[in-house]
């Protein structure tokens, strides 16, 4: 960041100051002669990297007020340039600013055109600045700075129209403001023989200004104008006593030190000179309007570009550093998380190995173990002893004591309806086919025991009773496959050799079956 150096130029000399942290410090003084100019050039050479603000406090100023049509952009620039040339032909140190728009129907813009009307006075100083390639931020005048100061001190709100009187090396500055905006300013020479004379001169000079304002019809005749005089509190009483009274001016003596404090100035004034205050205000709140042309400020613009580039790059770099810091923090957290996970994985592996170690010795691989046992369980599911069905037949016989079993053909088959057609245990399954269900079947060949003569119905009832007893269990399928006689219409039905309709041969066949499986069903 470049150092800020403030240059105060009055009619007798140029004073150079440094400005840092709200403190204005005198560095050097250069008299307004050839030696002073040369010394100034040498000073500039020693501080080429600094930014220079020039505050002019000279009497040769001009203020021209005019209402112009309101335009914007290039038209506005052209209008202002034309007016400045028109009013101040020959002076390169000009500026203009808006005093607002009129309330008339046209709403023209009220403009104040200003100039430092003795350019030859500034030339040696400006030449030194040009030659040393100094970075000139701007050329200002005390009235330009005073406008901003007025607002910050709150004086504009209290007094819509007022005169501000300040003292400095250049003399007694009287500045007239309307609605807080600069309208006119005047610099009078200050007496050199003490505070009392200065106080009296303040009163006289301000009255002269008032008379000028009346003559120019800037102020209506008879208007009482508040007049604020900025003085050191130690000299207030003197000024109050000696500034005099006026029927048209209401003098008010304001505390210069307090004003400096309110402007965030450190290094407070020790007398009634407001130069340091104006220099501080210029450095801190330089107004947009100033007198240097773009040629004089070119190197300042280059500095702004340099500063902007480097600042932007620095901001980007700092942002990247912050980004890198954030990501570095996240990386650290990721590493910590990874360490935790690796530790947990190690512990889990240990626990897993411990489980394996605690298992009994494996007679074969785990996969083979599972496969063999699963297949054995499946085989047991599809196996059954004949005794299971024999038991059911036995229970049925208890309820049908007149039935005599002659033959039981038990087998495992896939077709319980016709085991001779089914795939028995020897039939190989087609590769890839889903295995069909397996059934245990028993074909029971039986007959009714000899007893009282039975007719066809009695025989049928006995057989059905036996079949019903077999069918008591819900999972057993029972089919009577052969009766002692056929009662189908297509078949013959004849009596026996015995008397009446008694049936001799009562042999019949019943088939029972049930599906195997479920012993090793998963829970």
């Amino acid at each position, binding site marked *: 960041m470049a150092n800020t150096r403030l240059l105060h130029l009055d009619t007798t000399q140029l004073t150079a100051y440094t400005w840092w942290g709200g403190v204005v410090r005198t560095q050097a003084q250069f008299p307004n002669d050839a030696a002073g100019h040369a010394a100034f050039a040498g000073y500039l050479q020693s501080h080429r990297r600094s930014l220079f603000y020039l505050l002019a406090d000279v009497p040769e100023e001009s203020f021209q007020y005019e209402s112009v049509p309101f335009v914007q952009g290039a038209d506005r620039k052209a209008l202002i340039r034309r007016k400045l040339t028109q009013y101040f032909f020959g002076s390169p140190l000009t500026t203009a600013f808006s005093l607002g728009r009129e309330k008339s129907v046209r709403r023209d813009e009220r403009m104040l055109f200003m100039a430092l009307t003795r350019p030859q006075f500034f030339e040696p100083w400006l030449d030194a600045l040009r030659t040393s390639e100094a970075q000139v931020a701007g050329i200002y005048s005390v009235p330009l700075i005073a406008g901003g100061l007025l607002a910050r001190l709150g004086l504009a709100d209290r007094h819509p129209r007022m005169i501000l009187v300040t003292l400095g090396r250049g003399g007694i500055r009287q500045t007239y403001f309307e609605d807080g905006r600069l309208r006119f300013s005047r610099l009078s020479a200050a007496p050199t023989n003490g505070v009392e004379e200065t106080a009296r001169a303040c009163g006289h000079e301000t009255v002269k200004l008032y008379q000028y304002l009346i003559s120019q019809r800037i102020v209506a005749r008879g208007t009482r104008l508040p007049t604020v005089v900025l003085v050191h509190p130690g000299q207030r009483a003197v000024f109050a006593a000696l500034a005099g009274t006026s029927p048209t001016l209401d003098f008010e003596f304001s505390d210069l030190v307090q004003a400096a404090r309110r402007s965030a100035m450190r290094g407070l004034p020790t007398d009634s000179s407001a130069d340091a205050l104006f220099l501080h205000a210029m450095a801190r709140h330089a107004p947009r309007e100033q007198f240097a042309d773009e040629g004089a400020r070119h190197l300042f613009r280059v500095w702004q570009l340099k500063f902007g580039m480097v600042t932007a790059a620095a901001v980007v770099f700092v942002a990247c550093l912050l980004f890198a810091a954030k*990501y570095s923090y996240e990386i650290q957290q990721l590493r910590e998380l990874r360490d935790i996970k690796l530790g947990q*994985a190690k512990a889990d592996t240990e626990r897993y190995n411990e489980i394996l170690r605690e298992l*009994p010795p494996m007679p074969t691989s785990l996969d083979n173990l599972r496969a063999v046992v699963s297949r054995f369980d499946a085989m047991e599911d*599809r196996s059954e002893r004949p005794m299971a069905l024999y038991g059911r037949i036995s229970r049925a016989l208890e309820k049908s004591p007149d039935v005599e079993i002659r033959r039981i053909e038990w087998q495992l088959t896939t077709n319980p309806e016709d085991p001779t057609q089914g795939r028995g245990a020897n039939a190989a399954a087609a590769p890839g086919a889903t295995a069909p269900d397996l059934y245990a079947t028993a074909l029971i060949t039986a007959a009714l025991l000899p007893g009282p003569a039975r007719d066809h119905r009695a025989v049928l009832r006995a057989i059905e009773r036996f079949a019903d007893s077999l069918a008591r269990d819900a999972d057993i399928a029972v089919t009577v496959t052969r009766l002692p006689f056929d009662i189908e219409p297509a078949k013959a039905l004849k009596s026996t050799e015995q008397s009446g309709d008694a049936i001799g041969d009562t042999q019949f066949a019943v088939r029972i079956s049930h599906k195997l499986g479920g012993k090793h069903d998963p829970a």
Partner: protein
Amino acid sequence: MIRRSDFRYLRASLAATIVMIVASGLLVAYVADWHKKERRLTEQAEDSHRQLQTRLARAREEEAEIKSKIDQFNALLARGVVGDERRLDWVEQLRNIRSGRRLLDLSYELSPQGLLDPLAAPVSSGGYEFYASPMRLTLPLLHEGDLINLLDDLEATVSAYIRPKRCTVERAVGAGGTPTGNAQLRADCIIDWITVRARLSAG
């Protein structure tokens, strides 16, 4: 407006700007790449840990199951179901049962060994194979209890898994319809004698 002659004032700042921008870019690229690598490594560690946790949880669940299966397999091994066929032992055992149970008679025919029909156990057995040797048993019975006892004794004593496939029991009558000798019944059964053996590796 910036002129060509102004570049001598801008050189150092331009260089500093370029250096900072490039450094910023390199810094961001480096850190982003590093972050990506670390994140990938951490994700790998998390995946690995998740898999280990799943394996551990499964191992805990399967521990009881594996122990049970080991016990079952060892029981089959001890019974002789897993292992080579011991045909001589089987016939000796049949003889012992016949004399122990005082069976009237017992004849058998043990067919050559073959692979167990997949219908009997339609699942794979991994590196082991199930073999079946069908046996035809015919015997006269005083009562059906003789057959039941025979099958129970075979199940309890022989080094194989006994799986009846077909059994016909009928009254033992002669030409005149009267029982022959002491036998009331006659049994004719086909029984698979099943053993399990490791598959022979090819070649």
